[in-house]
């Protein structure tokens, strides 16, 4: 958890939206929870748009 | 930068000691490695030997060894205090992270004594190689290497040169004081102009407005660095350097000196001052006190610090939030101050040197380069985009003019 929170701060400073990286607790018995998580996450990401093209070009730089 | 705390007296002295050592390293490096090749080897020597190795070859290993040794002293003293000679990681708000032992102090004292002697030797060498050579003297005094502007430098309460603390004094083309200002007032006196053909801005005296690259009385252009510091002061705070200061003006026809190449001589006068000051500090018993840090307690906010880097006056201005995270920074550094003067000096020298019908030789072009080399320019600094060498220490004042904090620079 502490690692996750520190990582979130770093990612945020690097311009990665908080919503792109999720930590969830799902037990082996919670198939429905898992499906729900993936559904929500996919929707969130569709709203945010692609990560790469917005932010960085591989070895980018020109211009 | 902006913490309400004054470093302990020991910390201040240690920072100045370290800074004096830095000046010694930098001025020696510039004079011998960057400037001397033009005089010792000659302006039109073969480029493959017109460098520090050529100089060592010509003056001999013995003198070369002395040059290397004393520059090494400057670096060693910095490393002794700051861990490393370049980019020491040592100063912090309220003081420094490591003190000086009595044993180290003695070592510094010995090195300082040796540096004083070496500085005097360097001045003698300049006299022998340059001042006794009529061709060089004529070159220094020629119109092609003359630029009439205002001058800027940091001075103490007696208007003596100080690298580390004091007020900025600006004198006009006649050497008369135009104004003297403290760090927090810099925006009232200095402004910067942008030109599309260079990434480096052009500072000028705000009061006179930007008038383009124009020299002479009434110009808004000013110069910084050794020649400017000598011109903007009334003398040196140490006795031997003061003697040479007087000799400098007696020889070159009084203040101010507008001859660009005279900066090399001025640099050596400063070298002697830095060595003498280093010795004074090394003999001050307070430098070995363990009281090296005052822990800041107040909330940081905004500060401006000014000091003299080897290459000119540094102004650093920072604003922080309540956690001490920087929210805005503005920097006018050493060489940035000299952007306009260097541009003008190069143009003047080119016009004087290159005449119709001449073959444009390498030596001729090098003589154009000599105009900027005199300024010991550092364009890395200048284009920090903005700020130059970091001050060893910067005094930060709040809006009421109270000293809020001193910040350190790490060796230039």
């Amino acid at each position, binding site marked *: 958890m502490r690692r996750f929170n520190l990582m979130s701060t770093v990612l945020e400073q690097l311009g990665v939206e908080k919503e792109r990286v999720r930590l969830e607790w799902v037990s082996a018995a919670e198939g429905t929870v898992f499906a729900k998580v993936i559904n929500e996450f996919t929707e969130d990401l569709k709203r945010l748009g692609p990560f790469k093209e917005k932010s960085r070009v591989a070895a980018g730089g020109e211009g | 930068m902006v913490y309400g705390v004054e470093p302990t007296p020991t910390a201040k002295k240690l920072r100045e000691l370290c800074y004096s050592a830095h000046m010694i390293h930098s001025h020696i490096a510039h004079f011998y*490695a960057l400037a001397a090749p033009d005089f010792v080897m000659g302006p039109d020597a073969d480029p493959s030997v017109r460098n520090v190795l050529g100089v060592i070859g010509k003056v001999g290993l013995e003198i070369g060894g002395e040059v290397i040794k004393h520059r090494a002293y400057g670096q060693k003293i910095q490393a002794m205090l700051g861990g490393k000679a370049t980019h020491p990681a040592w100063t912090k708000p309220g003081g420094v992270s490591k003190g000086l032992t009595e044993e180290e102090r003695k070592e510094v004292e010995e090195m300082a004594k040796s540096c004083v002697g070496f500085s005097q030797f360097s001045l003698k060498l300049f006299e022998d190689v340059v001042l006794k050579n009529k061709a060089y003297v004529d070159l220094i005094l020629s119109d092609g290497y003359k630029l009439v502007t205002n001058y800027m430098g940091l001075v103490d309460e007696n208007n003596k040169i100080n690298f580390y603390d004091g007020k900025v004094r600006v004198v006009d083309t006649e050497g008369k004081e135009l104004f003297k200002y403290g760090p927090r007032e810099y925006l009232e006196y200095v402004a910067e102009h942008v030109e599309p053909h260079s990434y480096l801005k052009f500072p000028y005296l705000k009061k006179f407005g930007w008038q383009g690259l124009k020299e002479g009385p009434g110009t808004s252009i000013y110069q910084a660095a050794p020649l400017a510091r000598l011109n903007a002061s009334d003398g040196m705070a140490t006795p031997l350097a003061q003697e040479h200061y007087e000799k400098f003006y007696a020889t070159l026809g009084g203040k101010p000196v507008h001859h660009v190449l005279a900066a090399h001589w001025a640099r050596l006068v400063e070298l002697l001052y830095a060595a003498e000051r280093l010795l004074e500090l090394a003999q001050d018993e307070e430098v070995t006190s363990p009281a090296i840090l005052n822990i800041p307690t107040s909330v940081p906010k905004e500060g401006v610090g000014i000091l003299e880097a080897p290459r000119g006056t540094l102004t650093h201005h920072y604003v922080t939030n309540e956690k001490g995270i920087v929210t805005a920074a503005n920097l006018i550094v050493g060489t940035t101050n000299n952007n306009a003067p260097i541009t003008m000096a190069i*143009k003047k020298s080119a016009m004087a040197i290159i005449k119709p019908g001449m073959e444009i030789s390498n030596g001729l072009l090098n003589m154009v380069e000599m105009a900027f080399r005199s300024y010991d320019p550092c364009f890395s600094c200048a284009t920090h985009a903005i700020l130059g060498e970091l001050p060893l220490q910067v005094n930060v004042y709040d809006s009421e003019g109270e000293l809020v904090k001193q910040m*350190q620079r790490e060796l230039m």
Partner: protein
Amino acid sequence: MKKITIDPITRLEGHGKINIFLNDSGAVENVYFAIPELRGFEKFCEGRPADQVPQIVSRICGV
């Protein structure tokens, strides 16, 4: 008009170049002195802790 370029200028710290324009008679018409570099310290100091700034800005110049 003839252009002579000195690039890079040497025995100094950093980058610089000189463009000298000669007119048809071979006399110097004008000289441009350009600094080709910019690093942007003023901007990227933003966000850094003030106590770290001396260590960062010392990298403006290491000479």
